């Protein structure tokens, strides 16, 4: 496996899907440059791409296990049923939790380019395997979005504060990978890792080191890029306030781009707007340079906040919200399961993934940022009930096993 080769090599090389599988529509769709503009013939392209990739998985399913074939039979689905965008909801979806328990591959093991583990909070972690195409195409999408927002500047330098695990030999954690990869858009001056590696597989949150670095960065007056877990960023700001650290004024072109858990202690969620307000007050970063990203190892398409802090759906994917019991498509403005659909991934049949998140889909024009693509809003985790019975819950049992 090649999972250790995550650094420099990946960043600048580009590869084409045709090299491997000849899925032309998939390649054409995923290489669309403008994230939020649908070109003419877009719907047909998307459907064709989906058909191609599903057929690819079915074919490969036969080689490795009968899972995908069985699933299509079990759900009475055939790729022939895909005729228009409205048919996407018919594709049998796979719950993200399923990937936490089972390794389903549509490629031979030697083609695994990257093996990522989700930063699961409780126990089980997803094991997701990428071939070179799948991860590169997702990264290309990030490039395109960064480009779209004008966050790429190769002629300057930036200081980086990464709220992520300092890499150790052979790290498989997806977030660490993502955040390192994000350093390429503006050349690195210095990098500070908030979660310092202490050896023996242990990381510690170096909160005072982080505060010192921020002070240093202010003095250096270079743009600062802060990436990573919102929770640790929040703790930093809280600590600054507690210690009465005088508000800093970081460089105007600084950028905060967060991703990952929004939980503080005892499962209490951090209010995003509180965090933005704090960051604005204590670091002097303007609201529109504070952005959150939504993504996961089970579905790597980047969803990056617009200036109004909404997650618009880019051209490379579709979003369906499903009823929590009947699992039917419930359209706009109602809470349900978040179902992501994209043809990008060829290494695993994760093209229609039901996320463990509760979300609401809104019409794009409601946002007002100018992007007309629909956007979704995350309203909670699926199955995170505060156990209201006196019967033990599965998560409780898990925690102690």
């Amino acid at each position, binding site marked *: 496996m090649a999972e250790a080769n995550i650094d420099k090599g990946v960043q600048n090389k580009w590869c084409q899907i045709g090299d491997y599988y000849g899925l032309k529509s998939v390649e054409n769709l995923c290489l669309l440059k403008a994230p939020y503009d649908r070109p003419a013939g877009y719907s047909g392209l998307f459907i064709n791409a989906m058909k191609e990739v599903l057929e690819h998985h079915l074919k490969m399913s036969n080689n490795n296990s009968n899972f995908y074939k069985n699933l299509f039979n079990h759900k009475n689905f055939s790729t022939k049923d895909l005729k228009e965008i409205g048919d996407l909801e018919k594709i049998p979806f796979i719950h993200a939790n399923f990937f936490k328990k089972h390794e389903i591959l549509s490629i031979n093991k030697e083609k695994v380019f990257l093996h990522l583990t989700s930063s699961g909070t409780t126990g089980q972690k997803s094991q997701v395997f990428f071939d070179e195409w799948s991860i590169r195409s997702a990264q290309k999408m990030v490039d395109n979005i960064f480009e779209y927002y004008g966050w790429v500047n190769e002629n300057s330098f930036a200081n980086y504060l990464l709220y992520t695990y300092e890499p150790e030999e052979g790290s498989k954690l997806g977030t660490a990978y993502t955040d390192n990869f994000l350093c390429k858009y503006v050349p690195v001056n210095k990098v500070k890792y908030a979660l310092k590696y202490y050896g023996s597989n242990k990381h510690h949150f170096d909160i005072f080191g982080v505060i010192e670095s921020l002070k240093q960065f202010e003095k250096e007056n270079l743009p600062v890029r802060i990436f990573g877990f919102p929770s640790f960023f929040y703790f930093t700001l809280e600590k600054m306030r507690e210690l009465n650290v005088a508000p800093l004024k970081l460089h105007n072109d600084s950028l905060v781009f967060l991703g990952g858990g929004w939980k503080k202690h005892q499962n209490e969620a951090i209010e995003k707007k509180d965090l933005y307000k704090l960051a604005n007050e204590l670091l002097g970063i303007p609201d529109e340079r504070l952005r959150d990203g939504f993504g996961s190892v089970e579905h790597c398409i980047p969803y990056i906040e617009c200036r109004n802090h909404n997650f618009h759906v880019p051209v490379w994917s579709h979003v369906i919200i499903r009823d929590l019991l009947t699992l039917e498509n419930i359209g706009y403005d109602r809470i349900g399961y978040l179902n992501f659909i994209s043809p990008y991934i060829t290494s695993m049949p994760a093209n229609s993934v039901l996320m463990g998140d509760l979300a609401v889909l809104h019409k794009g024009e409601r946002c007002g940022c100018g992007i007309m693509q629909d956007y979704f809003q995350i309203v909670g985790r699926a*199955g995170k009930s505060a156990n209201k019975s006196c*019967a033990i819950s599965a998560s409780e049992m898990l925690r102690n096993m």
Partner: protein
Amino acid sequence: MNNKSYKNDKNDKNNVNSIDAGVDVGIDSFYFSEQKLNNPKMLQELQNRVISGTTNRFDIEYVLDLLDLFSKQLETKSHDYQFCSADEMIVFIQFLKRENLLKKIDREIGGLEYFDIRKIFGDKDFYQGIAPLGVLSHVTPTNATGLSFLALIEGVVTGNVNILRVNSKDGDVVVRLIGELLKLDCQYKGMLKNKLFCIDVDSRNQNLLKQIFFMSDAVSMWGGDVAVNSVRELLPPQKKFIVWGHKISFVYVDFDSFDNEDAMKNIAYECVNGEQSACSSPQVIYLNTNDFGQVKQYAKKFQSYFSQESKRMKFDRPGNSELSELSNVAIVHDLESCLGATIGDNAVLLEGESKDYRILVENEMNLKASPLFRTVWIRPLPLEHLPAVLFDFRDYLQSAGVVSSNAIQVIDRLIAAGVTRITVPGKMTDSFSGEAHDGKLALNQFIRHISVRYPLKNVGAFNDFFKTISFENTNASEKILSKDQFKKNDKSKGEVFFKSGGSSGVPAVSAFTYRDYEREMQYAADGIIAAGFSVEEDSAINLFFGGGLYGGMISFFTILEKIKAKQYPMGAHDDLQMVASTIIQFKINTLFGMPSYIIKLLKNYEKELLAYGGIKKIFFGGEHFNKDQKKYLKEIFKIDFLRSASYGSVDAGPLGYSCEYCNDGVHHLHHRLHDFKMIPLLDENNSGLCKLIITTKSRLGDQIVNYDIGDVGEAIVGPCQCGRVSPRFRLLGRTGDIFRAGGTFFNYMKIERILSDCNYKDVLQIVIEGNTSGDILKLILLKQTVVKLFAKKNKSMNEIILDLKMILLNEYADLSVAVEDEKILGLDIVLLESEQCFVSSASSGKILRVVDKR
């Protein structure tokens, strides 16, 4: 209760030990908000009041009476309690009933008598008993409304001071209920004052909670692991932490019962009932097989029952979190059914058409929690794998519903594997009063076991050294229960019956439940220890009559058994020779029996028994020894230890006992068993004579309320030398023996005793006649006995009568005052030829003792 109050002085609340009545029971008196407690002064105030609560004297009988009345109040004034749901109300009403709490107390701590520190026989000077833990903090769950209140009541009946951290779910209800309960308590003796507190503190205010938990002797915690851990972290290492955690239950179907469709129906009911939210609801159905084909077959058949049962009860769509949790599991399971060569090789999802239920069939043995809401796992688990599979889950195991033709073997395996509660599907969520919860008995968790090793002479139990606090329900009936009414009492709850009189054909009975009987015998046993029976030294023969529903011998057997006395249960056997030889052969030193039988025995075998010379103590009952008999025992047998074995009646059970300082008919009341009123007989010269009226506190068989026991006595005021504070009285005879003539009360027994002392020991009838000049008292005696008595003295009949009159007037002061000083009463002595000439009772044919002809 003090010395005065049992004399019908019911409103005298100020006399009650350490309780100040008329307390303020506004919400401020027991409810402390977080804001209030953040003020150190208020926190100190709470602590002071908690300390004061621990010193409040606790009387379980009072508490049971109060709670029973509260239960009735909830029932009859339910419109005042709209803040409770109807379901909660039913639970509260049932829970608070005296009968149900008694059952709970019996089963969980062994009975009311365990609240006393009592001698444990077998080790010298060793006493044991229970005491409240002291201060109990309760942290209750938000998933079971009303549970907080029940938890508090459990704390109250064990005598603890209780601090409840109110929760968002039932806080309001509980605070209002406590307010109402305290208000009621305040109308009586206010014993619960400073015993119940509510604190409204956010779980995040850990510093404050820490300080409050520090005041407690124990924290009783309900909730899931995260909540439990967060509280545990706040406690000092030694603090007792009682956890009622989340649990898992399952059904186990044996291989011989895979076709048992009745069971399937019941299992389906369990999976629908209450949306499986009880910890006793099954989350998994295990089948005793390792053939997954059989498991799938079973699941298919079970589905039709599940479907039917689910249709019977409407499926309310749960909240989003719960819904997504159950869908997460179902979706993943459905996907897993596609793993493997063909669909359903290792997993199958069976769902209702409208997704109202889910059966997750899986070829895995592990115990797996279900997301509830009509979702159940079906898995294979051969019996031999049970211990290994359940091993990791023992902290969480609760109930198992068993379906098997060989249930005992299966149950045995389940118990060994860590299951604490086993029942049949269909009854899994039913519980009964006094049932262990998660292997624990709540009340037993809330007490301390106390041991005292201290030499104390003639002390069987500590209870009578402290006053009782009687509830004295002001609304209770004042009506006196007569013997005739007693016969008509409801006897349906009785389990042990003793004959209570009734001469014609069917005997009247006195009904006891076993717990009534056992408890009353326990106190009677304490009584004979107080009277001077020594378990270490004495060896007893029980010579009371037995059989024919008579309670004497049997109850004394139990009494002696209670204290593990060495005893020979002889009964009043006709074969006196055998009885005497037994005494001699086994070196018995203590006789229990009726005076007449004992005297007969001693006289018949005087020589042998004198030669043995070992009889040292006599405990008597049923009648008294007269002067001559006492003299005989003392002079011939050198026995001066004569004590009443017990004062009691078949109807009301043991009523009193004589400690070593009780002479001449003086008894201590068994005040833990009975409340006692002495109603003065109307009496111009203030004789102090009273009728004894009994109310038995916790008897379930026969209800003894204001029962006229038919005895007359006088109160003995002041402390007893033995140190016991239980009320004392001197027995002076039967109610019918006391009569009023010439404005004064006279006692038949006193006249009988005077005559007996001058050796007239035959029939005595007193006839009261009235004429214009006043009442005349006629003593009717049997002529031949009187003649025999005076034969040697060579006196005429008139002289004899005059002599007797003189003796009576000399010995009976009240009689002399009425006859000689005030001259309002005539005294006559009439001699009749035979007993037939005396006036007899029409019903029983017995000669009447007192005949009022006025």
